[in-house]
């Protein structure tokens, strides 16, 4: 049954990706731009789900990893004029180092304590950006001179391809034996350790993978938008959106997180005519999903499937 479903999920995903890939042929640049951002956002949410859904680490600071990646890439390009691709790679590596820094307390403290450490990490990064305004552009943001390409269709394909590859790797990892060990150590670290699994090693690996994709996606997003600012890649509210996206789509599903992220961004755009109430409506819908369908979109779909 599970194997059958897996193949079905695979074909559905394949069909969705193929349809998504043809979008630039018949939709406007405006829609493409929206979806491009949504896809990068989807990678943020999937990376977060790997840490929360599998390693059981409540990371309130996804934007710490995203922000470090985005700002490293942005600063190297804007201040030192390094080439775009070098900057993106270095941004991803900086995020991995940030992930290791974040992992240190995670190995010592658990639950709300770890959650707070990650939140504080974001606030410190935010203060750093504002205080070292000469380097980072401060509250106004950093203008990035270079872009990958200015073609909306090409940008869209890059984002879609990046999200698809990330999804393949992250989903594959979550279904692999490593994912199972992570899940076990998230639910009961003592027992998992007693079974002979090296929890520290597995958790570190989860942090590194999550940080790598967050940072890479952050760096790519910066070069797409041409600017890095606190409001787009560091602020706590951005991190909240990432978490909401993952919970909405269905935690512990990885793919659901991407769905949730795309839903959040597209819904926010559709609700734009309602003006200031847009955020209220999105939050209310998200709260209803959390209360009545705690499995999220994909969780609800999966449970119907198994009946």
């Amino acid at each position, binding site marked *: 049954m599970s194997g059958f479903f897996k193949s079905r999920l695979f074909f559905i995903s394949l069909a969705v990706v193929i349809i998504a890939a043809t979008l630039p042929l018949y939709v406007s640049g405006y829609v493409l731009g929206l979806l491009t951002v949504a896809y990068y956002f989807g990678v943020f949410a999937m990376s977060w789900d790997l840490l929360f859904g599998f390693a059981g680490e409540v990371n309130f600071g996804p934007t710490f990893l995203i922000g470090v990646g985005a700002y490293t890439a942005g600063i190297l390009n804007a201040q030192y004029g390094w080439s775009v691709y070098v900057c993106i790679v270095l941004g991803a590596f900086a995020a991995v180092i940030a992930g290791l820094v974040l992992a240190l307390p995670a190995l010592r403290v658990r639950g709300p304590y770890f959650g707070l450490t990650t*939140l*504080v990490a974001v606030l410190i990064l935010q203060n750093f950006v504002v205080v070292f305004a000469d380097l980072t552009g401060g509250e106004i943001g950093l203008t990035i001179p270079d872009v990958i390409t200015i073609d909306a269709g090409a940008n869209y394909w890059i984002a879609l391809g990046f999200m698809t590859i990330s999804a393949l790797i992250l989903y594959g990892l979550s279904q692999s034996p490593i994912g199972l060990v992570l899940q076990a150590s998230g639910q009961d670290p003592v027992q998992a350790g007693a079974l002979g699994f090296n929890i520290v090693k597995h958790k570190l690996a989860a942090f590194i993978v999550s940080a790598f994709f967050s940072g890479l996606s952050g760096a790519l997003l910066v070069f797409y938008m041409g600017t890095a600012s606190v409001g787009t890649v560091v602020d706590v509210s951005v991190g909240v959106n990432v978490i909401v996206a993952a919970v909405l789509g269905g935690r512990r599903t990885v793919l659901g997180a991407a769905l949730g992220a795309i839903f959040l961004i597209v819904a926010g755009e559709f609700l734009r005519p309602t003006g200031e109430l847009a955020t209220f409506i999105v*939050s209310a819908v998200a709260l209803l999903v959390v209360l009545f369908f705690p499995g999220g979109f994909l969780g609800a779909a999966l449970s119907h499937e198994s009946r």
Partner: protein
Amino acid sequence: MLALQILIDGFAISALYALGATGFTLIFGVSGVLNLSHGAIMVLAAVAAWAAASLFQLDTYSGALIGVAVAVVAAFATYFAVVQPIQRSRRIPNEEKEIFVLTGTLLWGIMIQELIAYFFTNNAKTVLPIVEGVVDIAGIRTPRNEIFTAVVCCLVIALLWLLVNRTRTGKAVLAASMNPRGVTLLGLELGSIYIVVWAIYGILAGIAGVLLGMFLGVSSYSVGPLTASAFSIVVLGGLGSVSGSLIAAFVVGYLETITAYLISPAYRTIPALLLLVAVMYVRPQGLLGRR
């Protein structure tokens, strides 16, 4: 001179922080709930007091009372509409209830914040103070309102201490925070204890919010920072330890005031954050927390 100024201003800020964080830590200690809509409820109280006084022409006392009443209603709404359904849900596994309560209250807080912004705009609002004028304390001109804030905070905290340690209801609350199962075995209804705690929380958050509105002013933008500061004070002091969060509130309050006066207001929050990280590494359960 500057030292005295820091001493006075720091005391008022710290007392306000302490009051705001006490209710937050009480809820966590008794029911294990981290209420991330805390900042929104405080701002809601202040905005209600402001609206009562400015839009409906009520006097400042009634305005303040309405603010506190609204906070109590909001606290109950948070409990019955968000926290309790999650705690009772059978579809959410027990070990994940914590993150669901966090996500749920966070979304609830954002909803309150957006509604405030929608009906009353994002502009900062200052509640008319109950007492006006300034007094001279050894050469430092201090607004009476600042002294009033500090005095009310200390009084309310003292009353809370009396309530928890000297009354039957308070002792039940204390017992529930130590051992919920034991309390149930003694024949006390946990549900009614939770309701009492949320009522106390609403009153505390309401008073803190209204005072904040009189002292510094609030806008819907203050929601996030308020929640974050209560959260960090509570963790610094030790989750669930009321005396720990009182100490932590004064540490954070003075640290911020000293930084703001001696270095720059722009760096205000940084030393407290660094201290928090240091404490998390060295003593993760906080100053007076129990694991």
